């Protein structure tokens, strides 16, 4: 059954040798604290890559695997960050609880909104999601007393992990925190891979490939798109919560639509039809942005240029091109 489905769709869900790619990626990620300082990088940069990579991969559940174009995912990322920050600040100094708080805030709001827009497609879906993203931005920005407004939410910090038998100090030790991020990242992406391999995930790909035919087969399209949107929002909010933990800070610009655009470009740059594509794209984008903004004040032009060049000349993305090469 699963082989039949894989040959039926034009591009496979997983690359030709999924385990090899996955092994290489995790080997590279696990050894980051060893090799990154040698290249002149710092561990927080790797943390950013993991967090934004998770956001982009979560976003890609929609774009790459359901074929629906959201342009407002920064909202759920930012809501996740604020959810985590507010939980730490006002409810309890617990890192896992903060993650739950972030996922609930972003996931519930995303799910409610997804209900409203599930029957829209294409650019109209994009436009409505952008506008909703700006509501979240606007509310966070103006609700000064709760969110800190323009200055962002401060005054919280991640708490050490208490596992019962031992306590892991992720507060001060950045290497421990990196491995904590990696652990959450691995669990989240593992869940995503399971989801995509499940009948539900296959149905989403079927909707992407031919919505009308899927509808004729009796698949409730709107409900599937809604569920896919909600799941994608939950994972994106998780990434946002991790981002707040990484910086001990939640920034209103984290909800702005320019970040939504960056999440999309990371996804496309890495390859939206490849499972790990968005992670590769996030790594490329974060490193390029870090480098460019340290070199010139006109970094916006260069970031814009990346967008234009990727769209015009590398639309398949890095992994997309590699994948195409191995298939031949």
């Amino acid at each position: 059954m699963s082989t039949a489905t894989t040959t039926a769709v034009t591009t496979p869900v997983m690359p030709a040798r999924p385990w090899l790619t996955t092994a290489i990626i995790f080997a590279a990620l696990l050894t980051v604290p060893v090799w990154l300082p040698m290249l002149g990088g710092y561990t927080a940069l790797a943390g950013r890559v993991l967090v934004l990579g998770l956001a982009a991969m979560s976003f890609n559940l929609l774009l790459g695997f359901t074929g629906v174009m959201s342009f407002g995912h920064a909202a759920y990322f930012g809501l996740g960050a604020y959810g985590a920050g507010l939980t730490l600040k006002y409810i309890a100094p617990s890192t896992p609880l903060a993650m739950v708080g972030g996922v609930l805030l972003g996931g519930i709001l995303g799910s409610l909104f997804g209900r409203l827009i599930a029957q829209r497609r294409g650019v109209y879906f994009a436009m409505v999601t952008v506008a909703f993203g700006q509501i979240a931005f606007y509310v966070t920005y103006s609700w000064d007393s709760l969110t800190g407004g323009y200055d962002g939410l401060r005054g919280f910090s991640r708490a050490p992990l208490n596992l019962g038998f031992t306590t892991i100090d992720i507060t001060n030790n950045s290497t421990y925190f990196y491995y904590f991020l990696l652990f959450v990242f691995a669990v989240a992406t593992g869940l995503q891979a399971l989801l995509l391999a499940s009948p539900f995930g296959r149905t989403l790909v079927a909707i992407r490939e031919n919505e009308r035919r899927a509808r004729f087969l009796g698949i409730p399209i709107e409900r599937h798109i809604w569920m896919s949107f909600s799941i994608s929002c939950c994972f994106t909010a998780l990434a946002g919560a991790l981002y707040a933990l990484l910086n001990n800070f939640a920034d209103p610009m984290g909800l702005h639509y320019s970040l939504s655009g960056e999440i999309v470009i990371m996804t496309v740059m890495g390859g939206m039809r490849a499972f790990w594509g968005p992670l590769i794209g996030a790594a490329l984008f974060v490193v390029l942005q870090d480098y460019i903004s340290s070199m010139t004040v006109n970094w916006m032009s260069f970031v814009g240029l990346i967008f234009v060049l990727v769209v015009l000349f590398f639309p398949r993305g890095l992994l997309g091109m590699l994948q195409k090469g191995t298939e031949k």
Partner: protein
Amino acid sequence: MLQLVLYNVTNGLIIGAFYVLMALGLSLILNLSNVINFAHGNFLALGGYIAFVLTPFLGYWGALIVSPLITALFGFAIERLMIRRVYSRDPVYSLLLTFGLAFIMQDACRYIWGPSGLQTSIPDILSAPLSADLFFITWYRIFMVALVIAAVSGLFAFLRFTRVGIRIRAGTLDLDTVSILGVNVGMLRSLNFAVGSLLAGLAGVLAAGQVGLNPNMGDDLLMPSFIAIIVGGVGSLTGTLCGGLLIGVAGALTTVFWPAASEAVIYVIMLVVLILRPRGLMGQEGMMS
């Protein structure tokens, strides 16, 4: 109180007029080419800056006419060089392209004309107030509103009575058939993009006289323009017109009673419309899906 309400209604109409000019251009491009032009606010800024450069040579009135035309030409060139390449692809590419373009154009304006705001001058005859009682209404505001009305009427006449306009409307409904009937669809889309840019450029010149110039002056107008389109109904230019005026006036009226919510109210209107009438006030059934 009455004066306060009147003051804010005038303000709202003027802001609404800007939303309308922006949103009509966006809507034209969206309807025919299925592209959301994220750089539309930057075309507005460009129009304002070009007028600023031209004013010493052509005077205010000359710049007012020439600057939107140059903006239109620029839009035409951008469409020919870049945007047309992504029509046949997934909509994500056109979004990313105009998004990147917006970054580049904003940074270019900042690089050329500096990050801080520039003041522009308007003729003395326009800056005088209407009367002592109506001190808040300057002739410039009347002039702006009149010009926007003229531009919008001109656009609707263009779409109704000229050959290109009729083809644009036909293409909005069924581009394939228009193409089969022998119309050069590529050129039609370029012209349509140019008309959209023209409106943005005109809005830019007018806005410069009201609030001055800065590189991101169009950004604040972009999101309300999206909302004007969603509220009015995708596919209907009349809807976009009404949507723009509605949210402009609603935002300004809210300022009277609850200043903090003046911006939030337009989002509330959008949500209410999405819940109660998903296709928008004047949108056709199925246009949004």
